[in-house]
């Protein structure tokens, strides 16, 4: 990297969304043959900046130079013509088409489509970088990591040599992540310029050559990765020194709170989602649930919360005085009517946990609006609650009358968790509570969850970051293909061991 060539130069890039300044005169260089990690908290403008490079947004001000020539990128097609390709957090693939068909989709060179030629070219790309894709496989048959691979091949097929990956590892297992990183290193050695957006600092240290940090839309600085440290990067992102340890207080008087026995769930299409799952959730303890995406975590939590029809099995809630309550067959309202204080922070925050178009007060009301005999709603109490949550959890919002869709991801999650905790639950189910959240917000959430545990709440924490699960949970239940693959003690558990349990029931090495 002695003679570094800057492929991309972004100069004074400014982008506003209404009153929000998403990017404020950002300067950024992207070099050939280098992996650049773009860091920053939520809402710091990383994705916005990259979206302007890939033609999704157009900058309000500023200039972009590719190979020292000024360019205007108005559409993803313009970006492709400049050999820029972005792999988004949410895949943009057509499920019913094959990998090869998805890869050529939208390309038209005027000639007849020769799918055989496409497949050959796809295989060449795969061989060159070590991908594992069958061009004839339909997307809906693919795992998340395979879909991601298709996205990367798609971009390479179009000749991209500037690649942008937006949080590519959020959905991958540790093993899949290692594979992806190996491929990315191959591409770098092949002379491509690569940008990766991520929140996971150990990945940054592991993979990148250089880090650039954004904070509140502004470029803070960049440096070679090996000359920096996780602590320094965090401080730059947050703007002040922070500690990076997750606490794990001892469980508080753990007693069985919920017993799940032989739970079996099928999806509407008849696919087995949970297969004879049994375990116990204790009060005053955090039960972590690990597993690759789609292994049944979602169905498990929704079945306990009364949102998922089950085929067989039981979920028994045990009161303090020893009396038991069967939760299967009851909807959320019936569960609440039985006096079971169950709170649920679902994965889909704006599609399920909250109503995006409603303001903070109305969202607080979702849980409590039925209270009282009156025909009319009481808005004073939820307004007070909204104000309290905003104050206590340091939610950044113009007012409690702002629709939650206007808030950034971390603040949305604080509202949701704040509301769920406010009802003084005895069981707290959380699904990907810190997904997409920056470090600062994540630690706020860990803190809140720990406080619940210390006050005797039975907490279930479904997480995707194994490092966090290993630091936070008292016990970890590993799911694999809807089966319980193992339950390990959080203290002393090894990442590799849990990783293997996630991919194979029982975790036996091949």
């Amino acid at each position, binding site marked *: 990297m002695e003679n570094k060539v800057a492929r991309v130069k972004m100069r004074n890039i400014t982008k*506003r*969304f*209404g*009153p*929000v300044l998403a990017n404020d005169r950002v300067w950024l260089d992207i070099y050939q043959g280098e992996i650049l990690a773009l860091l920053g908290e939520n809402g710091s403008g990383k994705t916005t900046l990259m979206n302007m490079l890939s033609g999704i947004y*157009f900058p*309000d*001000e500023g200039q972009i130079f590719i190979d020292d020539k*000024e*360019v*205007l990128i*108005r559409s993803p097609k*313009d970006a492709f013509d400049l050999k820029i390709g972005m792999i988004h957090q949410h895949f943009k693939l057509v499920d019913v088409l094959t990998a090869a068909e998805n890869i050529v989709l939208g390309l038209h060179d005027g000639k007849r489509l020769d799918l055989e030629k496409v497949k050959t070219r796809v295989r060449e790309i795969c061989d060159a970088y070590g991908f594992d894709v069958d061009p004839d496989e339909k997307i809906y048959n693919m795992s998340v990591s395979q879909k991601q691979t298709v996205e990367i091949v798609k971009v390479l097929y179009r000749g991209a040599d500037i690649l942008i990956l937006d949080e590519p590892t959020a959905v991958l297992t540790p093993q899949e992540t290692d594979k992806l990183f190996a491929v990315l290193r191959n591409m770098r050695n092949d002379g491509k310029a690569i940008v990766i957006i991520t929140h996971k600092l150990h990945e940054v240290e592991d993979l990148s050559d250089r880090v650039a940090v954004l904070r509140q839309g502004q470029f803070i600085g960049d440096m070679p990765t090996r000359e920096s440290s996780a602590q320094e990067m965090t401080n730059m992102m947050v703007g002040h020194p922070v500690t990076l340890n997750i606490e794990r207080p001892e469980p508080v008087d753990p007693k069985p709170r919920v017993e799940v026995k032989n739970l079996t769930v099928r999806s509407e299409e008849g696919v087995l989602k949970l297969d004879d799952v049994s375990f116990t959730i204790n009060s005053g303890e955090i039960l972590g649930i690990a597993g690759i995406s789609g292994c049944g975590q979602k169905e498990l939590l929704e079945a306990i*919360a009364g*949102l998922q029809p089950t085929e067989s099995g039981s979920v028994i809630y045990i009161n303090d005085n020893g009396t038991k309550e069967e939760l299967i067959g009851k*909807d*959320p*309202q*019936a569960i*609440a009517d039985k006096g079971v204080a169950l709170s*649920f922070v*679902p994965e*889909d925050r704006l*599609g*399920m*946990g*909250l*109503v*995006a*178009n*409603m303001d903070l007060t*109305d969202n607080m*009301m*979702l*849980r409590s*609006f*039925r209270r009282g005999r*009156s*025909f*009319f*709603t009481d808005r004073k109490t939820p307004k007070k609650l909204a104000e309290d949550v905003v104050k206590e959890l340091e939610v950044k919002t113009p007012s409690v009358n702002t629709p939650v869709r206007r808030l950034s991801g971390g603040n949305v999650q604080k509202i949701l968790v704040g509301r769920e905790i406010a009802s003084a639950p005895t069981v707290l189910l959380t699904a990907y509570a810190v997904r997409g959240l920056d470090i600062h917000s994540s630690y706020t959430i860990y803190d809140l969850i720990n406080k619940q545990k210390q006050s005797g709440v039975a907490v279930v924490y479904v997480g995707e970051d194994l490092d966090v699960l290993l630091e936070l949970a008292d016990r970890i239940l590993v799911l694999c293909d809807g089966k319980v693959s193992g339950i390990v003690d959080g203290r002393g558990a090894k990442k590799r061991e849990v990783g293997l349990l996630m991919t194979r029931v029982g975790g036996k090495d091949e």
Partner: protein
Amino acid sequence: MNKQNQFHIVKRGAMPWYFGWLVRGIAIVLALLVSAAVTTILTGEDPLQVYATIFHGAFGTKRKAWMLGQNMAILLCVSLAVTPAFKMRFWNIGGEGQVLMGGLATAACMICLGDKLPNAVLILIMVIASIAAGAVWGVIPAIFKAKWNTNETLFTLMMNYVATQLVAFFVIVWEVPKGAGKIGIINQTTEAGWLPVIGGQKYLLNILVVAILTVAMHIYLKYSKHGYELTVVGESERTASYVGIKVEKVIIRTMLLSGAICGIAGLLLVGGTDHTVTTTIAGGRGFTAVMVSWLAKFDPLVMIFTSFLLVFLDRGAGEISTVFGLNHSFADILTGIILFFIIGSEFFINYKLSFHKAGKEEKHV
């Protein structure tokens, strides 16, 4: 990369409250200018005279002003009816059929019970029957939607045709005199079942009833638990089930209400003003109501203005076609131009265009 004068659509940020009204005002002025140009080019008439005639058609005489009020009241009533359904994202375009059924039930009571009951009892039965008929017509698609997730747009639309045919059938059953193909004024001599005339004004009762309904609907949507529930269901059914709202129940309850209010519109038309029933009494209001409701963004109080606007344009347009001897289609052209500008202005309230020239400074419009 050499395309010039590219423009982009950019969402506006928070604008001061009067900004929206300013844009709408400009839109109306532009609409009037374009209409004037079209009028002069196509007909050679003086556009100012045409506008004066529109105004005269709407307000010119006392009778015309009352007619305006009556038309506005019925349109607003149907709009109020479809609004809770729309807020729940249930696309009830069956207002037409629900009004017809309400009207048919009213007429049935008047014809069959006309001379057999005291008037007060008869009117009470008419009220109940019309509300029930409208509600039943509204709730049938709702039940299918709730239980089997059928498409409510098609379903409610088809129910309109069924209602029209039912009315056509009963018109023949009850036709007076035989062979006339129409019912004529029901109970013309006894006036049995005619809703009372208050203050000596035929239309005042209808206007008062709808005024009360408007306020009630505003309160229902904004402050009641039902209103909150149906808004949540409309925004996200998943969120609704997550907090334990019974989605099926809310859909059925809301459509009962929606149909019931359409039934009231039928009652006001048949019992209050027309005193007869035909297949066209609803007069397309079931569809115009969709526009009233959307233009007002489902706010009952704003719907007072949007329903006024549409009725005003319609009444005025009718007048110019008679006064200037123009085809009625010409009036529709003017209405179309004005609506186009008003609806189009919403775009400029939320977005702006920004133009780029390669390598040069940018302009915002």
